[in-house]
């Protein structure tokens, strides 16, 4: 078993990086690996609850919304930490806006992931 860390700086609508991070984390969890995410910059917007985009295709990027994808990863054991400074900068009210399981942390958490993980993927 390996420990894979992700640094995610992409937001939910400006690039596909959140989806790539999800797909790689999904595949890693399915293989029994340990997975941590550190959401930085607009990455802090990815797990915000109650996202909804009507009429989305079932085969596309938004078959489920980004927050739902990450809630699924958390339910399956992934750790999701959002940078507190990035959260505050964006006017996100963490207790109200994040679903259960999303943690708010700081850069020492990223430093720990860098020290402890076997691999780190920056997206």
């Amino acid at each position: 078993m390996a420990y894979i860390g992700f640094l995610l700086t992409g937001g939910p609508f400006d690039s596909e990086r959140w989806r790539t991070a999800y797909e790689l984390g999904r595949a890693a969890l399915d293989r029994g690996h340990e997975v941590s995410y550190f959401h930085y910059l607009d990455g802090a917007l990815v797990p915000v609850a109650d996202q909804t985009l009507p009429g989305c295709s079932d085969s596309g990027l938004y078959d489920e919304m980004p927050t739902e994808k990450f809630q699924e990863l958390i339910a399956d054991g992934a750790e999701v930490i959002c940078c507190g400074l990035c959260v505050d900068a964006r006017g996100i009210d963490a207790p109200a806006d994040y679903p259960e399981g999303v943690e708010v942390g700081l850069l020492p958490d990223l430093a720990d992931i860098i020290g402890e993980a076997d691999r780190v993927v920056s997206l």
Partner: protein
Amino acid sequence: MLYLIDKPMAEVGLRTAAEDPEARIVLIQDGVYLAPDVDAPVSAVARDVDVRGVTLPSDIDRISYDAVVESLVEQEVKSFV
């Protein structure tokens, strides 16, 4: 070493991979539009290829997310995404 390459970071990513005799390149996201001129084996993420309707040259393999994860557990990874 596995190199994940997207288009916005291809400038530095491909230069870095070019000098590594052990390089294995994975084109990802808009990176599947690239046709890198390198000696290393090159794959492209199948989902990113399909949704964009890109026709890959014969020397570029398709790769699944599962296979990317297997590869990056076996060897170190550099991400240019």
